[in-house]
């Protein structure tokens, strides 16, 4: 299987090189944020205030990890369903986040925002939280600790595997895959 190894943060050039169906291995820093953190971040944008961490050019991973056992960096850490973030994603991409990782379908507004702001949506294997946690080498809560599993975390990853679903050109792996394998 061909893979593209990518270091974060991302430039437009890197984003524009990614196509739906590409397999990617991310190394570097990515940020964990899901429902509750997104709500807070978008409220800050609406008020014209800065975010607690600068995420321009960065990658957001929709994950609420399980607690780490003693000796572990992080507990199981697979993706959560991305569609719940659709209400916030266009604003997050306009702000300057370059890639978001989760699992599942995105709405039209998000797919359009990915094209407008040159960004990309990828999926990691849902339910493979124990496997994915092995690629996370450091984990630190950097904002909203009161949200527990929904806090924003700075994760250092090595070869974190993800597949491009929606690229900056409007392609959609979910639609393409389904059409290819559907039977009458």
């Amino acid at each position, binding site marked *: *299987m061909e893979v593209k190894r990518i270091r974060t943060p991302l430039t437009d050039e890197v984003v524009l090189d990614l196509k739906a169906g590409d397999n990617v291995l991310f190394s570097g820093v990515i940020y964990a944020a899901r429902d*509750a953190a997104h709500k807070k971040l978008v409220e800050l944008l609406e008020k014209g205030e800065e975010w607690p961490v600068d995420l321009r050019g960065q990658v957001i991973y929709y*994950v*609420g*990890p*399980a*607690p*780490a*056992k003693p000796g*572990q960096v992080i*507990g*199981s*850490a*697979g993706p*959560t*369903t991305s*569609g719940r973030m659709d209400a916030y994603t266009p604003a997050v991409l306009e702000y300057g986040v370059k890639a978001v990782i989760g*699992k*599942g*379908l995105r709405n039209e507004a998000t797919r359009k925002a990915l094209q407008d702001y040159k960004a990309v949506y990828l*999926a990691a*294997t*849902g*339910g*493979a*939280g*124990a*496997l994915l*946690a*092995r690629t996370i080498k450091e984990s630190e809560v950097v904002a909203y600790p009161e*949200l*527990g*599993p*929904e806090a924003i975390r700075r994760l250092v990853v090595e070869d974190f595997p993800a*597949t491009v679903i929606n690229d900056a050109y409007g392609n959609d*792996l*979910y639609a*393409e*895959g*389904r*059409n*290819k*394998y*559907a*039977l*009458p």
Partner: protein
Amino acid sequence: MRTVNVKLIVDAVAEMCKEANYFLGDDVIRAFEKGLAEEVSPVGKEVFKQLLENARIARDEKVPMCQDTGFAVLFVELGQDVHLTGGDFNEALNEGVRRGYTDGYLRKSIVKDPLERVNTKDNTPAVIHVEIVPGDKIKLTLAPKGGGSENMSAIRMLTPSQGTPGLVDFVVETVSQAGANPCPPVIVGVGFGGTFEKVAYLAKKALLRPLNQPNQDPFYAELEKEMLEKINKTGIGPQGYGGRFTALAVHVEVFPCHIASMPAAVNINCHASRHAERVI
């Protein structure tokens, strides 16, 4: 009459929380192996490979297979000849969940109020279904339920004239619309008959049946097969990347219903079909 101290229930539930989240059942593992061998999509095969590896890591390291360790849903069959002592029965079940999720390093995923959304920090309360049965035993079944697949579930109050096609269309349409969201390959629990609340309960209960153990009624066994085939023709595939394994099984649980009604419910479970059982 048999006397049982609720402390036994606390300990059993705590252990079951860990067991269900760390150890994927052999029936599901076998279904993954079949998927790996038979899935025609290369990326779909790769998903099955990852899921098998993930289950192995979870089992060996005693870590949850998925970070969403779920809402603790408990089914209790309580023998009518059991006399419970030592405390509140419902509190014992919740205490077991509290201990299991805390000691087992499982995620606390429950918020106290749907709008205020403040985490209860110990994964309680559990959702508890109690059935009084003959005998002097207590059978506990824990099925931790993830939020992503639960969100894709649906109820429809079908009417009698819609018949079998009405049920089949509703089930296939619900799974088809869910697409990649509930972490396919999924297990589809279908409740059929009863009332509005009963049909949802039946759909959840259908998920407890071991994979590919068909309904005992040959008609419904055939219908389960037909719906599985239709779902797997959608092309959604493992993780929605395209392929032939969208669902691993469809289980239907049936109950009598009112002359005016034909309720149906679809409860979708992700591939991490987790449960643990104890008899006390």
